[in-house]
């Protein structure tokens, strides 16, 4: 029996009301799905005098495509990502990661915006969105700004937003036809588990050559991270199993993992390379149409 600390709960119906509350209330925090936040509040890990519940802000819940860009409202639930035909068809890597997040119960509450703003180094939706080169739309009463998603992550469980700001949208270009992407997650078990390491890879081909490569890892550094040197190693070259293995092994020196209850830092270093290799291999197969 651990009661939640007391707070004032506000339930705005529009984005404007939500932003006004965040600007005017001292010590306010937005709450999205609450699957992380309520636990942190109960444990006393964070404090909030006011909670601004975004659950009724319907205008932040959408998945749509316009001019070859996919836009996802920050309050879109994991279960909605999984059920979306648009995501299944054009960004299945994001679907794969959403399916591996938490349990059915938490996926029915948890949102993509909450998953990202919670800024866990292990956030499952982060690596796929990083390799899709997603941009984050940040809104406040003052203005809207668009930042590369990586800029949202300031440290473990720390996002870069100021208290009056909200992440309102994630957007990325529809991947071209000759491209493929894949997500791999290693946990201590298959279901309802935080990643020991998670990895996403994206490859775009031009004939035999790798035109563009993007790799991102989670749970191996204070924030989810792009592996730029791995990408540079692949771009402009003819892809092969060997090249993928060589490039993947570079992750070992790029990551900065911690020892914790889930795994040792040394194991994470090894697995960063292994999972990158697997994700790149599957992305390559998908780019060539050899894997659903």
């Amino acid at each position: 029996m651990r009661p939640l600390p007391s707070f004032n709960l506000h339930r705005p119906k529009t984005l404007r009301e939500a932003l006004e509350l965040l600007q005017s209330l001292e010590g306010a925090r937005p709450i999205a799905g609450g699957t992380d936040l309520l636990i942190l509040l109960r444990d006393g890990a964070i404090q909030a005098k006011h909670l601004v519940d975004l659950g009724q802000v319907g205008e932040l819940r959408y998945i749509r495509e316009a001019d070859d860009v996919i836009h996802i409202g920050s309050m879109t639930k994991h279960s909605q990502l999984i059920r979306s035909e648009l995501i299944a068809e054009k960004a299945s890597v994001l679907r794969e990661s959403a399916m591996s997040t938490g349990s059915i119960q938490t996926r029915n509450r948890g949102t993509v915006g909450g998953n990202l703003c919670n800024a866990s180094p292990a956030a499952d939706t982060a690596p796929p969105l990083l390799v899709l080169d997603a941009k984050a739309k940040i809104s406040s009463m003052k203005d809207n700004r668009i930042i590369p998603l990586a800029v949202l992550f300031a440290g473990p469980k720390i996002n870069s937003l100021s208290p009056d700001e909200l992440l309102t949208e994630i957007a990325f270009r529809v991947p071209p036809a000759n491209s493929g992407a894949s997500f791999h997650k290693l946990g201590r078990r298959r279901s309802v588990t935080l990643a020991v390491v998670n990895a996403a890879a994206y490859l775009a081909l031009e004939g035999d050559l790798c035109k563009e490569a993007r790799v991102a890892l989670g749970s191996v550094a204070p924030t989810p991270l792009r592996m730029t040197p791995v990408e540079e190693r692949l771009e402009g070259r003819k892809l092969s199993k060997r090249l993928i293995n060589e490039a993947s092994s570079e992750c070992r020196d790029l990551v900065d993992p911690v020892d914790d209850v889930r795994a040792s830092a040394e194991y994470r270093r090894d697995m960063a390379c292994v999972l990158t290799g697997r994700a790149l291999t599957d992305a390559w197969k998908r780019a060539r149409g050899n894997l659903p």
Partner: protein
Amino acid sequence: MRITFQLNGKRIVCETAQNRTLLDLLRVDLGLTSVKKGCEEGECGSCTVLLDGMPVNSCLVLAPQVEGSRVTTVEGLEDDDLMVALRRAFMEDGAIQCGFCTPGMLISAYALLSENPNPTEDEVKTAIEGNLCRCTGYVKIIEAILDAAERMPVE
């Protein structure tokens, strides 16, 4: 604060605190003891209820957040054909040991079969991934859900 929502098919108006969880509202204040209090952090699934038809952990929902929504617990599905079939299969297959996880398991199984009347074993496993059974009776629970699916008339 005063909230209004639909609980097991009936409109409910009640007073609750802003920091009350849906779990405490249902179990402690409204006496629906099928909703079990286990981990209180969304890991065990024993407090699973349907919120607008979707299984959620009621320990991670604030009571005021169900304003205007539909909440369903095992008690509200007493005469529901699918729930009757699930209950019978759980009993006949011995899918109950201590019984603590059973209501949550039944709700998750009910949500699965409502949407997918003929699931594979893997689909059943995924459907109950968020429900822990500390007696570790998973094999019989999975069998019972598959049996209930088989016994339901095809519509």
